[in-house]
């Protein structure tokens, strides 16, 4: 008799399985989890801690907070950050001081580990929430983070 009870129980499990998919079929319009990506660009907000790419914020006077200490460059595991710096005479104190010429960031090599931002003593760099990083040409992934003509914000020291 177990032959028939096997069949019966087998069919029962199949039908209960079908009831699960059937339930979702009936609720498919409300429960759909699809994100309609390019259309929902307006409403799609990344979390504030999202690691999109490293940026260097500038204030309205075109001033940044990077002193060129190179701690981020050392912290980076992949050689993503290169700082080109120069010693220049500070007009106020008259002493020679390390100033950045270019803060080069290779987005293509970045693994978004966050060690550079942890290492930065002056909060000069931070994460941007931008996630649309694809480009047609790989060279455009190499970015200079400090804007042309920008200078160090007064009062920022290592």
């Amino acid at each position, binding site marked *: 008799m177990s032959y028939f009870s096997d069949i019966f129980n087998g069919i029962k499990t*199949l039908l*209960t*399985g079908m009831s699960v998919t059937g339930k979702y079929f009936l609720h498919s319009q409300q429960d759909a*989890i699809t994100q309609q990506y390019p259309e929902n660009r307006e409403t799609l907000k990344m*979390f504030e*801690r999202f690691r999109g790419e490293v940026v260097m914020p500038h204030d309205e006077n075109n001033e940044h907070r990077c002193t060129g200490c190179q701690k981020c460059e050392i912290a980076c*595991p992949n050689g993503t950050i290169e700082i080109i710096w120069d010693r220049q005479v500070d007009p106020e104190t008259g002493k020679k001081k390390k100033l950045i010429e270019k803060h080069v960031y290779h987005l293509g090599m970045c*693994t978004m*580990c966050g*060690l550079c931002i942890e290492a930065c003593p002056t909060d000069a760099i931070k994460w941007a929430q931008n996630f649309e990083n694809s480009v047609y040409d790989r060279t455009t992934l190499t970015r200079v983070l400090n804007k042309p003509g920008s200078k160090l914000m007064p009062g920022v020291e290592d």
Partner: protein
Amino acid sequence: METSTKNNNFKSEEYFINMGPQHPATHGVLRLLLTIDGETIKNVEPDLGYIHRSIEKMCERDSYQQIVHLTDRMDYLSSNINNEAVCLAVENALQIEVPDRVKVIRTIFDELTRIASHNLWWGVMGMDVGALTTYFYAFRDREMINDIFEETCGARLTMNYNIPGGLMFDIHPNFVKRVKEFIAHFKTKLPEYDTLLTNNVIFQKRMRGIGMLSKEDAISYGASGPVGRGSGYSCDVRKTHPYSALDKVTFNEALRTEGDSFARYEVRIQEMWESISIVEQLIDNIPEGDYKVATNAVIKLPKGEFYQKVETARGELGVYIISTGTKNPYRLKFRSPGFSNLSLLNHIAVGGKIGDLVASMATLDLVIPDIDR
């Protein structure tokens, strides 16, 4: 055949099949050289290295903080647990005691990672035996965990949240609320998994009695995690060598004695329940305090050898550091669970059909970057 094969006395009715490196069931770039007689598997020889990046060599030139982010890329489904393994090894070597808050948060993250990993495995398990819908149901629930991770760590998969000495930053204010929401949601969905797949008669027929692994063989092959526990081998590192806040919680080690594919399946399902219970025990009791202790900017480990084992979603991950007192490890070896688990694939698959190979391989829950490193 350019790769040497074990089976030199190759019979005329047998033939080779090259399964992978591009094959839907190998979940990545695993290549299996199958010797088949009709539909019956005669020999399985894995050929690895298609995603080998020599992480161990890279570690020898990196500082201890930098090593952590490389472990994200080994077993990417339990990345937080991998991170923690390295951090624990470094902390033990430096004899740093991290605050209780860090321990609790780490454990919560570990268990959420474990749920996420088992969840994805469940979806893929269904796909491997032909039930395609499981994948989407699993991903719906996993998405919530990923959102929790993203909100706190800023990344969904390669989180790099642990640093030697604690955590990179404190948990997000929404964290507790979201975790509770997830737990409430997931508790209603997990029984559905059973109705849809576990109890299904076809699925049970496919899994029961297939891929038999005895307890002795499991130990001898170095099986760990759900693969070992499905064979009745009590190998949960969380029980045998508790770390972080695991000594504060009570949970049952999921054990099955059958040793077949279905036992391994059941172990993972039960582990999801146990992980939920661990998270529930801790989520209301996150102690106040610092989220990290200060370490030197340049970490130098004392001369010596350090070994730390943790339980990832796949099994026992070991981090073996040999330090000569410099800022880089002299040698760093990852004992990855997948590598040992893969070595028993030949043992459990021989004699079965091609469909059995796929089903029992799915219960090993292989992640190829974890095996190749």
